[in-house]
């Protein structure tokens, strides 16, 4: 895939670029602030932009603003946002703006190289990737706890993985069960959460996350 990196830390930019090149991706640009990021994307839109939330000048949420703008203007470019902390607000904003091709990971997740690369692939191919920590918080602090209480432990495991953006097949592999078993769990979850079963995998995730997070 063709990737643009935006992070104000030179150290991390370089590290990420090397990692991605090792894995056979192409890094088309590596920039240090949101303005340069938008310029770089305008001249040569990549498949995916990896964006740090905090960038100059104010170090608050420039990266997130840029990510939302990218999703609106360049639908072909996925956005994977890296954040120092889990900010439910950010996750929610991303989800309400974009229906696919978005991801929100804790910055430290980059250290789990396999997981990071996996998330990158999902977002780059119009899927979603949400950090397990983000999902955990959304599940824990959800204002609509009641329907969640009705889920079995197994169903909880499944919904958490679904929310992170894994496919049914991947979940089946992770839990060592058959794919049809996972599908059964998923249907039962939807029944319990009173969600209509829409087609399209990312929309389901979106529906769940929206349901839980807003």
């Amino acid at each position: 895939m063709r990737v643009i990196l935006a992070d104000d830390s030179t150290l991390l930019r370089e590290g990420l670029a090397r990692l991605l090149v090792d894995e056979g991706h192409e890094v088309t640009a590596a920039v240090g602030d949101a303005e340069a990021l938008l310029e770089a994307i305008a001249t040569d839109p990549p498949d995916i932009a990896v964006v740090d939330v905090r960038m100059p000048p104010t170090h608050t949420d420039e990266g997130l603003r840029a990510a939302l703008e990218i999703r609106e203007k360049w639908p072909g470019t996925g956005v994977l946002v890296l954040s120092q902390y889990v900010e439910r607000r950010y996750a929610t904003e991303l989800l309400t703006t974009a229906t696919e091709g978005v991801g929100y990971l804790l910055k430290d997740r980059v250290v789990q190289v396999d997981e990071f690369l996996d998330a990158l692939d999902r977002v780059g191919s119009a899927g979603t990737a949400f950090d397990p920590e983000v999902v955990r918080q959304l599940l824990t602090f959800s204002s609509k706890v009641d329907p969640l209480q009705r889920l079995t432990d197994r169903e909880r495991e499944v919904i958490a993985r679904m929310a992170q953006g894994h496919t049914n097949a991947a979940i089946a592999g992770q839990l060592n069960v058959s794919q049809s078993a996972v599908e059964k769990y998923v249907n039962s979850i939807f029944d319990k959460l009173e969600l209509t079963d829409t087609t399209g995998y990312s929309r389901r995730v979106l529906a769940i996350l929206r349901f839980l997070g807003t």
Partner: protein
Amino acid sequence: MRNLLARRLRVAAGVLLGSLSAVAELAMTLASGLWLLVTLGWSADDRRGETRILAAARWWAELQRRRMARWYDTGTADLAAPLTGMPALSYVATRWTVGLLGGVVLLAAVIGAGYASLLVWGWFLVDLDRWPLAVAPAAFGGLFLLFLCVQGVQAVALMDEQLIRHFLGPSDRQTLERRIGELARSRAGVVEAVHDERRRIERDLHDGVQQRLVALGMLLGRARRAPDPEKSSELLRQAHEASQQALVELRDVAWRVYPAALDEGGLAAALETVAERAAIPVRLSCELRDTPPPTAQAVAYFVAAEAVTNAVKHSGAEQVTVRAERAGELLRLRVEDDGRGGADASGSGLLGLSRRVAALDGTLSVASPAGGPTVITAELPCA
């Protein structure tokens, strides 16, 4: 000597003017007293003249204040113009007594000087055969009177000031209120400064230490995924290096939060580390007779650290001079660089410092004309 004489003459001139004012004050007092008596039973509408009288009294009191500020040594400059009329009128009604006293003292001084001058010309005038003891006692008496009056003039000036302060100066309550206002402001400033520092520490941790650790983790992750052992061991070598850099970074951040040397070796030791860490030469002189209080030392250190950092970052200076010394009850810290100047005293760093300094009732001054040099001075009370 000449200075002293000039000062005394200035005060005498002030007293003279004050005694001339007494005439006008007496007239004003009588006129306004009569008017107030006559209108005692009138309704408020018919007593509008009163505001005019009070305004005149205010104007007059302000005139007197200026006279004292102009001619007397000590400060009445800190007195605000009288805000209310009634105290001003009371002041005018009492001040003429002091003015009169001043006039009497000056007159006595002139008489004393006249008699004292007998020493010069009395011998030629007085028939010493008939009055053998006439000249010397009169002349020395005159000298003595002159001496008393010179002291008296000083005393009258002092009374003059005390009187205006009594009627128009800030009351104890106002002084307290002013102080409370100052304290509230500096307290808010300290809270703000603490918040700023916490933000800075958080940023330091994230932008420094965490980035390095993440980079280290990535290197290790890549090493594990590397297809051939040679590449893997190269990545491990890099990771090892990165871990050491992360440690250095962590130590730096901890140091910026609080320099341990302050507790162990005091201000001098902590300032030495500032000098060691700076990228340009720092000349250091630390002359402290005794150990200042820890809070003053800490604030002085942070002022020095921030000022040196700013000089290195923004001024283009080739050298910085840091001086710490005791000046009476004050710990004075002076940081000077030979850079291009134009430092912004309202920038976040300097603002935070001035708040910290204000919290100790100290002062921070920044002088940084375009073209340099920049001089930052902090004075911290050590009482």
